[in-house]
């Protein structure tokens, strides 16, 4: 699967500036789909666009491929504008969610399509198609029609077809969403390996945060047509720029708090009626939202110097156990490894809570939305 001989000539950098796109409905209304979208991709980088359904991810991808006309904006590939080129002049390897294989062509013909269109010599076509199929592990299925392949195999054909043209940019639109969970995990690892070895700059759309986390060099979280935050998976998870991002990539406790003072990179923040120490380089405001991931909440015997609460609910999830703990009017979620039953607590126990200090992230408090 990983052995391959396809190499892109050189990876390209992508710059997207001020993209705007609205759809005009037949009723005369117009729906803004993408608003002032900016993004930079370094050569060879894999960036995922992550966001809820309908936030405009597909629209961005289609705009890059030239399949949607822009209202406004600039698309630069290594500094050259491609915004006004038609799709067939752009060299974008697009993998559609439904794969969009040509149903009347065999796997071989599908993969060879872009080469045939460019009228490459036969020998070259054969060699390149063979190595592309080898790269995705389908070297034996060449003569089949797409209708005779499983979903996973179809997906690989679509990838091979996009790779074989040595695209300047690979664009994936939720390519794994029609596979079952197990296969999805396996294929995404293969995709990542393939992309790394080819070094093709890649923009990858998904609404699955696990997929985004495991694949990406960087993640761009989108909300209502805009980029909300761009960063490495760790930045996105540990230091989200907004509550929306924090909640989109995982469970989080968001507790209103007040900064009471700070010295040598440590702040004292008051939450749940207790003072905690938070290491900070920067204090966003006096009123803050303290974000703590469930796995950064430790359960310990109740004591006077830390918040305590009653366990209302426990949920066994196989790899971990989640507790919902009532502290005053607030419900706090804590997660613990499910291995070793020694430290487990039962429902309606009273427990003390401790927050892992360097896993706490502060956001300015914006009031109840």
């Amino acid at each position, binding site marked *: 699967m990983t052995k391959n001989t396809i190499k892109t000539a050189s990876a390209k950098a992508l710059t997207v500036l001020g993209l705007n796109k609205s759809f005009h409905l037949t009723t005369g209304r117009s729906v803004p789909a993408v608003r002032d979208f900016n993004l930079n991709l370094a050569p060879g980088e894999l960036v995922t666009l992550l966001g809820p359904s309908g936030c405009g991810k597909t629209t961005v991808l289609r705009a890059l491929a030239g399949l949607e006309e822009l209202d406004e904006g600039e698309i630069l590939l290594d500094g050259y504008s491609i915004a006004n080129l038609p799709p067939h002049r752009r060299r974008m390897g697009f993998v559609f969610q439904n794969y*969009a294989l040509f*149903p009347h062509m065999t796997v071989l013909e599908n993969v060879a399509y872009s080469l045939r*269109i460019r009228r490459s010599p036969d020998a070259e076509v054969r060699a390149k198609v063979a190595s592309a199929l080898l790269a995705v592990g389908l070297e034996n299925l060449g003569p089949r029609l797409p209708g005779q392949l499983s979903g996973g195999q179809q997906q690989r054909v679509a990838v091979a077809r996009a790779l074989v*043209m040595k695209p300047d940019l690979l664009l994936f639109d939720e390519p794994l969403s029609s596979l079952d969970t197990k296969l999805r995990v396996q294929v995404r690892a293969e995709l990542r390996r393939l992309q790394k070895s080819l070094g093709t700059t890649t923009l990858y759309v998904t609404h699955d945060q696990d997929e985004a986390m495991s694949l990406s060099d960087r993640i761009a979280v989108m909300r209502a047509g805009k980029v909300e935050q761009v960063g490495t998976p760790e930045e996105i998870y540990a230091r989200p720029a907004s509550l929306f991002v924090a909640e989109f990539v995982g469970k989080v406790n968001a507790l209103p708090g007040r900064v009471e003072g700070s010295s040598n990179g440590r702040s004292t923040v008051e939450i749940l009626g207790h003072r905690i120490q938070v290491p900070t380089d920067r204090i966003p405001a006096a009123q803050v939202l303290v974000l703590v991931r469930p796995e950064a909440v430790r359960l310990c015997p109740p004591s006077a110097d830390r918040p305590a609460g009653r366990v209302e609910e426990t949920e066994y999830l196989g790899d971990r156990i989640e507790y919902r703990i009532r502290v005053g009017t607030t419900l706090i979620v804590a997660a613990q490894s499910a291995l070793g039953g020694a430290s487990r607590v039962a429902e309606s126990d009273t427990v003390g809570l401790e927050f892992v200090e360097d896993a706490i992230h502060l956001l300015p408090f914006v009031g109840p939305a």
Partner: protein
Amino acid sequence: MAVALEGVTERRGGRGWTLVAFYPILALFLLVFVAYPMLDLFARAITVDGKPSFSVFARLLTDKFIWQVLWNTLLLGCTVAALGTILATIYAYAITRVAIFGKGVWHFFAVLPTISPPILMALGLILLYGRRGLVTNGLLGIQSTALYGFWGLVFAQLISYFPFAYLMMLHLFRGLDASIEEVAGTMGANAWRVFTTVTLPLLVPGLAGSALLMFGYSFADLGNPLLLGGDFPVMSSQIYLAIIGMYDVPQGAALSIILLVPAVLMFVAHKHLSARTAFATVGAKASSRHRMIRHRPAQIAALVFVGGITLLIFLQYATVFAGATTQLFGINYTLTIKHFSDVLTKSRHVLVDTLMLGVIASAVAVVVGLLLAYFVARTRMPGRNALDFLANLPLAIPGTVIGLSFALAFNHFPLMLTGTAAVIIVAFVVRSLPYGIRSGVAALDQLHRSLDEASTTMGSTSGQTLWRILVPLVRPALLAGMIFSFTRSVTTLSAVIFIVSPHWSLVTPTILSQMDRGDVGQAAALSVLVVLVVLLVIHGVPRLFGRDWREAQ
């Protein structure tokens, strides 16, 4: 557990005994009413004075005139098939891919002819473009017989039958996934190469299917050749003349057999084609919508095209309506309701008979079709494939041939049905069966297999399964099938012209004879009433066409 096993064995061995009782009845029905008339027809073609002889065929096949007629028929069929498919493709393309206004209207008029008797088209054409036609004589001041002959027939058949091809292409264009064309674009193909390497190959099966469909309709058409043929004779009108004009049964039978050859070839070709290109219908669900073309010149061209054809069709109906509401169209344009009141008194029984027989026949066709579909798709009854073939055969047989074979086969011992309503009903049923089966198969396929399994496991027999659980779920599909079969029966002329009798007359032959007598007003009034009744029936059941009309908007 034992009950559950029974469900399994039933599927394996065909043990649904309640329904099995129907199987021999169905088999007998098809043998008597599909196989037997055809064999009888063939026997008559090779019988002269009670002795077997090929002399009729020999005479016909050495007759230059017959070859000319056959050539005419093929030429007309090919022309109509080619032009009709092109028109239908452009029309469907304009409706599905170009941003134009008024799509509901354009679509409505494009499908209106599918629910009208084709003879109405001939009537409208004569009133508009005939010797004393409103356009030719009234506006242009010429007395021309140009309408009568090849091009008149092409025009009439196009306007009558292109709508069927349009519906087919509409379906196909809607089903084509935009992302398949888009991905070709991203791989370096410009618009033209996308069209030639992707769109066209995917459309070819549909185009061929639509061409064969049009060809078949042209072949089977009797009304237009009778009224507009002029000195351009085709097979169907020759059969009619041989029987009605010359009482030459062997010749009519032999001509029918000759006509059957290309018709059956078409049928086989079509089956082969749709089996080979099944890939066009499988595949992932469509992911992206087609972007409507907003290129101004394209929009204008599309509007002019659909508007022009809509205008032609509209003119037909408007003219027929005018013919029904004026004293004598072309001469005396005084408004009158005389024709309607005449029709509603003198020809009321014709209208009532037609509707009644049509309703009965369509109900029978759908029930028989459902049973056949059940036996073919869900059981392993011996001989079910042969029955399936027999039941689908009427698709291949031109209506004229079915009608004639019925008139001949059921005019003597052992089955004397001539002059009865039964022979008409059975003719309707036989012609509708292929569609009945299709709607039956579609209905059954939609259901989860688990559904009927669940009920069988609960201990009911398969007959109860079918009625109590399946029927309510498949009712929409069956009603759609009924409406289609009703429309087809009520509007056909070719299939019934030989089997109507003074006692049981039908609308289309009546219109024909009214036109022969020069009773244009009554013919027009009766036509208008038929169209209105069919429209009423179709809108009573908003499934079939209602959905089409809504989708287009």
